[in-house]
């Protein structure tokens, strides 16, 4: 990019502006505030409600085994968990992957986490009790703990993830998917899939579903830092299904600007994990593309088709243009 020259070097924001990079202030003021009504936040923040809504609309989600709502239920934990060898415990109002505990297997009353740590039943109980008291929820409001199906991710991703489940984050604006990336956990991110916690972000081509560019800690990388797996060139299966699913999530909660987190299960295919009402800043680094041109284009459209396949087609057109 030659135009601009010294001015771009003097004023880096001019360059960012031309690249169409969306900043946090602009995202909050122009997209989150106008398109996401406050009253709908609870549908997104409460994973239990999101899940219920998704089931109603037939969007596949990881199965919910049990909900722990009150301290008293912790005493019954072993009975409650008896049928399940592996499961995930997560706070219903958690954010940023905090408070999620993945149990891989268990033997005589001890639970083995995927990190290899072994927990006693008391440890697990304390963790759930912390969740209930609101340790992981915003503002410390009392929460409930969800115990759900542990996703066996698609073997396609084994090479690019370390201790955790990689997921696909798709930003959806006015019901049209606009950008996608894969977030792969690393040793640094401790199994979590958030970029600012040290996960790897991999840009995905919206049209073909092929990965093409990796970033880790805001730097470009070619290989996964822990496993050494090649990041580019992975072809995400069921890509159109995934886009369709993301587009439908918009209809489900009625918010105009959301991030949809989807995991690929080996047996069950794409499952919707959770929604996010404030997505989309790091994704621009992973895809090496600014969100603004696409968002502004869609914002300018008088009407967005109601039909989901048409919106997926529109998503590809938009991605192709900008």
């Amino acid at each position: 990019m030659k135009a601009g020259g010294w001015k771009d070097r003097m004023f880096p924001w001019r360059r960012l502006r031309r690249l169409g990079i969306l900043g946090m202030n602009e995202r909050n003021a122009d997209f989150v505030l106008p398109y996401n009504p406050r009253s709908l936040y609870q549908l997104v923040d409460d994973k239990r409600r999101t899940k219920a809504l998704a089931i109603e609309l037939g969007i596949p989600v990881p199965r919910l085994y049990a909900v722990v709502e009150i301290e008293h239920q912790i005493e019954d934990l072993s009975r409650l968990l008896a049928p399940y060898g592996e499961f995930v415990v997560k706070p219903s109002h958690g954010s940023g992957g905090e408070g999620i505990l993945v149990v891989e297997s268990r033997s005589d009353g001890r639970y083995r986490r995927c990190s290899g740590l072994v927990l006693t039943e008391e440890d697990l109980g304390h963790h759930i009790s912390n969740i209930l008291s609101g340790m992981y929820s915003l503002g410390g409001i009392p929460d409930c703990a969800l115990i759900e199906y542990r996703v066996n991710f698609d073997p396609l991703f084994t090479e690019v993830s370390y201790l955790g489940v990689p997921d696909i984050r798709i930003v959806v604006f006015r019901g049209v998917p606009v950008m996608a990336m894969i977030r792969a956990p690393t040793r640094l991110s401790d199994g979590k899939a958030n970029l600012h916690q040290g996960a790897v972000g991999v840009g995905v081509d919206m049209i073909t579903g092929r990965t093409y560019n990796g970033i880790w800690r805001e730097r470009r990388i070619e290989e996964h830092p822990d496993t050494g797996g090649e990041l580019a060139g992975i072809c995400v299966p069921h890509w159109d299904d995934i886009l369709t699913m993301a587009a439908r999530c918009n209809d489900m909660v009625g918010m105009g600007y959301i991030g949809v987190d989807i995991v690929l299960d080996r047996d069950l295919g794409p499952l919707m994990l959770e929604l996010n009402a404030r997505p989309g800043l790091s994704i621009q680094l992973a895809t090496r593309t600014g969100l603004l041109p696409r968002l502004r284009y869609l914002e300018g459209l008088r009407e967005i088709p109601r039909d989901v396949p048409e919106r997926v087609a529109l998503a590809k057109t938009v991605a192709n243009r900008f």
Partner: protein
Amino acid sequence: MSKLHVRLLAAVLTAVGLALCYYKVEILGLPLLPTEQAEVWTVEARIEFKARRDTAVKVQFAIPRAPRGYTVLDENFVASDYGLTTDDNGLRRQARWAIRETHGWQVLYYRIHLAKDPAAEASPPPTGVVMPVEPQSLPEPLQAAARGLLNEVRSKSADNVTFAQALLQRLNAADADSNVSLLRQDITGPDDWARRIVAILREADVSARPVYLAILKDNASRGSLTPWVEVFDGDSWVDLNPSSGETGLPGDAIVWTVGSEPLLEITGGKNGRVEYSVRRHSQEMTQIAEQRARKMGSRIMEFSLFSLPVKTQNVYRVLLLVPIGAFLIVFLRNVVGLQTFGTFMPILIAAAFRETQLLWGVAMFCLLVALGLLLRFYLESLKLLLVPRLAAVLIIVILLMAMVSVMTYKLGLDRGVSVALFPMVIMAMTIERMSMVWEEFGPVEALKQGFGSLAVAVLGYLSMSSDYLGHLVFVFPELLLVVLALTLLLGRYTGYRLLELWRFRGALKG
């Protein structure tokens, strides 16, 4: 749409704030700088007399009307048990003290505090007031001498003023002729002299009157008033120096009273005497302007913060700085992109720093947080529920504060006691949040955010402890409307944050 709305609102708020501020500076004369000092003169008249037994005493004393070039800040009348009235006939102002029964030596005081103010005009005499006509006072032999002199002078003058000047030159000349010697003969002091001049001028049908000046000279005590002469030139009264004929008042002088009536009249007493003393001191402009504005009957000053009790004023001196800190936070978070523990926590810490002094504050903050963190990590191993754990941290914080206070006090470091001013709930929350971040994201992130918060608190302290800003927001609280306008504008700021330029540097390289 809403962007335009916000801009209009911000423009209106800014305009209102600045207009009010402009009015206060230009019309009321409130200073923009906190250090501006002005000279204040205090003139004190001490009246002494011996009261007769068993009779009512009345004292009439001439006092200044608002003098030209000065603002009267305050006036005091000090006399125990005397009843006091003042009246102003448009020319002279008088204080009247009265008491039904007293005896022995009596002392009354009148004090006036003046500040120099070039803009202040002498209060004009109300229209329709007739100048008192004073009786001819030249005795027969002097009348003849005066007429002779006047005839000589008249030919060398054009109008009343030049006539009076020429006369004064003759009267004060070193080589006196017989007429002048006769007129000078029985003069005992400057007061007599001024009255004699007035009488001679009246002989020539020139309107003249004596005036009495208080010369503002620092540390003058037991002084008296300086007599001066005024001549009417058809439009206004012109001041003349009775011993040289020069026009104008001496520098640093005020007109105490006008006319030849006696300055002091006492009924029911004898041996009346007045002594004047003058003192100069400097006072803050703000106070002067505030007093002056009140004298002017300004509604704005009537409802200003100065009308509150001093104790409440001091509370507002701190409170009004909080918006400045809040704006700083908005700027640092939304424009720079800094992260802090809790939105306004650094501002509350900064407010505490005001009391503890910066270095002590920072040292004690670090000590408290470090000790708190250590104990918090210990609590973690006990696996407590959230609210009890928070309460436990709070209790520990308070105990630590008490301990630090006692220890530093015993060591003779008085400053340490002020640790009690830290907002302890905020401290407990900070420690809790910091330990969570420590566990979730590691010590590096926790220390980064901790020192970030501390840095913001220090910046907040520096801006909130500025004398200049403190003065501005207290004297011109309407400027906070401008701060509000800026905050609203930043609320619609959609540009990049400074740290985002760093975050997206990857994109910039590409």
